[in-house]
């Protein structure tokens, strides 16, 4: 996958790119370990090797894959599995508006890049100071994460229950921590802080009452108080993303 033509003129220089890509790679490797768990889990649920491999390569949305396999494991129908998985995948559609400015303009590369629009790639991309380094973080995370996720699920499916659970290693705490780090740049403004706090409250409140995937979608309503705050106190300076996409007088 080629970057925009201006990519090698990265003003922040090679050092910044190396640091950026190292962070992306760390995230990808952690996801790879989760991929191993997915392989173990899917294999235990009765999925054969080709199906596990094809699923990780083509569906490529971790939470959805776990949901689909989980439903099948509980004896649910294929329809129920697909339904709950797509519910979780719906947030990827919400990431589209966030990252689309960084993606290539021509249709074919853009459609290719769309496959990689997931939690981690979006987060790494919007954590960058500008559009160009955002695209660099996006594709680099996308490609390395895809490789790690697929190698991981393949290894998990082959090795099966030989490996212990990732909870033993505290890996389930690593992911929220990664997103705390990636959230940091978005809560520098008052509006951003209001959005984050309101979203956390909505999501927490919704968890006991709704199917998985729903709390995160409901949290989108948290933009309402945040937009009000921004409207009320317009002098509040926006982050880089705000200048790029929202940037109105």
């Amino acid at each position, binding site marked *: 996958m080629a970057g925009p033509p201006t990519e090698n003129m990265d003003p922040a220089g090679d050092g910044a790119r190396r640091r950026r890509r190292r*962070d992306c790679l*760390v995230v990808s490797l952690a996801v790879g370990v989760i991929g191993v768990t997915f392989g173990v889990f899917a294999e235990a649920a009765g999925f054969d090797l080709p*199906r596990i491999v094809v*699923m990780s390569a*083509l*569906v*490529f949305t971790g939470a*959805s894959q776990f949901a*689909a396999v989980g439903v099948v494991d509980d004896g649910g129908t294929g329809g129920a599995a*697909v339904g709950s998985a*797509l519910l979780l*995948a*719906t947030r*990827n*559609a919400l*990431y589209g*508006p*966030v*990252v*689309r400015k960084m993606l290539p303009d021509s249709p074919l590369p853009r*459609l290719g890049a*769309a496959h990689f*629009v997931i939690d981690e790639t*979006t*987060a790494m991309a*919007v954590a960058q100071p500008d559009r160009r380094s955002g695209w660099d973080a996006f594709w680099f995370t996308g490609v390395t994460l895809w490789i790690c996720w697929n190698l991981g699920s393949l290894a998990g499916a082959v090795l099966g229950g030989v490996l212990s659970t990732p*909870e*033993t290693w*505290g890996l*389930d*705490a*690593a992911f*929220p*921590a*990664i*997103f*705390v*780090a990636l*959230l940091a740049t*978005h809560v520098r403004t008052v*509006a*951003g802080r209001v*959005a*984050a706090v309101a979203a*956390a409250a*909505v*999501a927490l409140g919704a*968890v*006991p009452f709704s*199917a*998985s995937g729903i709390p995160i979608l409901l*949290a*989108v309503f*948290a*933009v309402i108080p945040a*937009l009000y705050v921004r409207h009320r106190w317009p002098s509040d300076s926006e*982050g880089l*993303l705000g200048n790029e*996409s*929202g940037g109105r007088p």
Partner: protein
Amino acid sequence: MIVLAAGSYGLKVLGVTALGAVVERRLGPLVSLLPAVLFSALIVVMTFETAGELVLDARVVGVGVGALAVWRKAPLLVVIVGSMSVTAALRLIT
């Protein structure tokens, strides 16, 4: 599974094409707030949710340590290893 693969890809494409354009045109100011909203919701769900219930366990402490590391501007690797090791250690002793 073909339905699932097509559906999840379709949602992603929808986001970067039609939906993305509409959201941006109609609700421009909203887009810059979406990362804060989605990541924040993702964090609390991943920290407190287990099988549809809110649960307080070792994860919470681990994520807290991670957040502390973020606040102290530690590198991402330190954040990850810190939150993991604290969570794993707590599980080992409890």
